[in-house]
């Protein structure tokens, strides 16, 4: 039986969180391949959302609603997916470094990554360096995101990278950093792989990085 998976895209674009969950579940009951739900339904939906956002046709709260819908659908879909279905969108650890209680930027980024199909483990604010290392060891993510809003806490991000090196796991994970005072130069200086000037651009920057790596 073939099914029109564009309905899933439409549901996603409308930001209907509960509706999309239900539709994903119902579709799974049919003989549609879970990988097709992802690749022909959800991801094209998110691509449209991304495009419309760039065109100034959709705005942050709407995009986040779509990302949440995507994330809810992914929770249902993920156990059913075959190896490789997800492409580069793997697991991501994200958190705000020790001494810093600011979380809005970090949370926005987390939601955007969820929207791109990542399984995001948000370890929260004011996280000591060792918690980042521990989370990387435990979850083996493809991406580690760190954020800081204070110039005093920015150096903690470099310390985390050093701790990853000392633990011999630096090469396992791409490190992306952000936060209002953080700059590209600073990211380079502390040896981060990627820098995102804002939450909205982080997903594209990561995507580009992984695409380059895999070619």
């Amino acid at each position, binding site marked *: 039986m073939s099914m029109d998976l564009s309905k899933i895209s439409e549901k996603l674009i409308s930001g209907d969180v509960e509706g999309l969950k239900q539709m994903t579940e119902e579709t799974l009951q049919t003989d549609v391949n879970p990988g097709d739900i992802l690749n022909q339904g959800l991801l094209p939906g998110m691509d449209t959302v991304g495009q419309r*956002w760039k065109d*100034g046709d959709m*705005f*942050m*709260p709407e995009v986040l609603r779509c990302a949440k819908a995507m994330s809810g659908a992914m929770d249902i879909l993920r156990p059913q997916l075959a190896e490789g279905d997800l492409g580069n969108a793997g697991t991501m650890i994200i958190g705000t470094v020790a001494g810093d*209680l*600011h979380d*809005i930027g970090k949370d*926005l980024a987390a939601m955007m990554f969820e929207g791109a199909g990542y399984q995001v483990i948000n370890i929260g604010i004011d996280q000591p360096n060792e918690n980042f290392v521990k989370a990387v060891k435990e979850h083996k993510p493809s991406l580690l995101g760190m954020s800081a809003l*204070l*110039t*005093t806490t920015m*150096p903690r991000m470099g310390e985390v990278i050093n701790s990853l090196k000392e633990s011999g796991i630096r090469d396992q994970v791409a490190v992306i950093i952000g936060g*209002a*005072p953080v*700059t590209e130069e600073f990211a380079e200086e502390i040896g981060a792989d990627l820098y995102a000037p*804002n*939450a*909205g651009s982080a997903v594209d920057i990561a995507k580009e990085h992984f695409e380059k790596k895999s070619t």
Partner: protein
Amino acid sequence: MINNRTNYTIQESPHFEIFSEDQKEQIFNGMMRTLQYTGANVHHEGAREVFKKAGCKIDGIRVYFPPEVILKALSTVPPVTEVFPWDGDESKKIVVEKKRSYFGPGPTPPNFIDTETLERRPYLRKDASLVARVCDALPNMGYVQSLGSISDVTNGLADVYEFADMVRNTTTPIMSWSFTREGCRDIHRMGIAMAGGEEAFRARPNYIFYGEPISPLVSDFHAIDKCIYCAENRIPQVYSPCAIGGGTVPATHAGQLVVALSESMVGVIAAQLINPGTCVIIGGVQSILDMRFSIYSYGAPELSLLSAALTEVVHYCGLPMYSTSGCTDTKKMDVQSAMEASLSINAAMMSGANFVHDNGYTESGLTGDIFQTVMDDEIISMARVVERGVEVNEETMAVEQINNVGPGGHYLYEDHTMKWFRSHWMPSLMDRNSYESWEEQGRKTMKDRVLEKTRDLINNYEGPRDKVPGKADEEIKRILQEAEERIKKEEPKKQA
């Protein structure tokens, strides 16, 4: 002449109002409801103890403030506080009271527009004294902030170095900030050194301290810790958030005002409980989150509206207002920044906010641009003309002179004109030249003129550096040295 008018009403300056008394009360009550039923997180055990003793309900880090605690705190805020320039120059004295406005730059952007290359780069130590010196010379900067966070000193001491360098380069009262209580104390010691002793400082405080809770409704440890220190030592202080409409607070303006007011009120209550009568200024940056670019807009017209609206509610509470103007979302001083600054400066001026900061912020608060500050200085002086209003009396109506000159004459020879024409505003940057002279003088744009004026001040205005008493200078150097030692001791602790 005897003034024989009776039952006569005088209104000379514009009356600008957004809210009625009823609406102000409604927002005030919204704050009371929020603090009572939602409460605020206070990451400070000592502060929570103080709140608990005063009758607040505590649940973990959450503090719920009953109305009587809030009202009691508001009953002890001072109606007027004075801040004094360290050299005793009465013309630069600040009187913190309703309907007096002082404009200044803002604190802590990471970047600065280099005054030579005009390129954005990290803020450096040398910029702090430059900003202080330029602002010292600008007649419309009523107080001074640094426009940056120093990147080239020991990490964690940007605050202390900034104050040390600025206070010796301007007599205009500074609004300082710090990372922690320790930095706050170092700055206090420097203020005391400049005042000539602890008693002298208490009688004539010479700076204001700036602290910031995190929106929504969070007072982190250091914010409230510094607030307590300032209250204990009677240092006039700001306790105000950056509320982001649609992000950290509701997208509706009234909702934003309720949350912003509640966040600040936590600091007011703490300070008044610790030391009743100490000066706390509230308000903060009030603007919206741009939902296309997810940036906090410093040029949005909503910033002007929200700031003026909050000013009314803050004054309703009997508190002084820390407002915002002269800032922009564009990257460097340009036409956009002039448009945005003109609107926000005029709105802040009309609203009667007490301290109006961020004059010289570009890139949505991420860059300090002293050229923008210099241009803002001119805009502020223009807005003051409107605010000064129109004086109406026999002398200013000049009916007699009108009769003397009669129809078809002119006023250029009149004594009355000689007496009064100098009260007209005179531009220092605006071009009113004829086309020919403008061409002759090199077809200069506003940008050219701002650059010229700013660089002239940088190169030729010396500021008060030579007037700093030798003893105070030595004491400041000693405090800096001790701060370096303190950080060395703190660093290993942080690592552990």
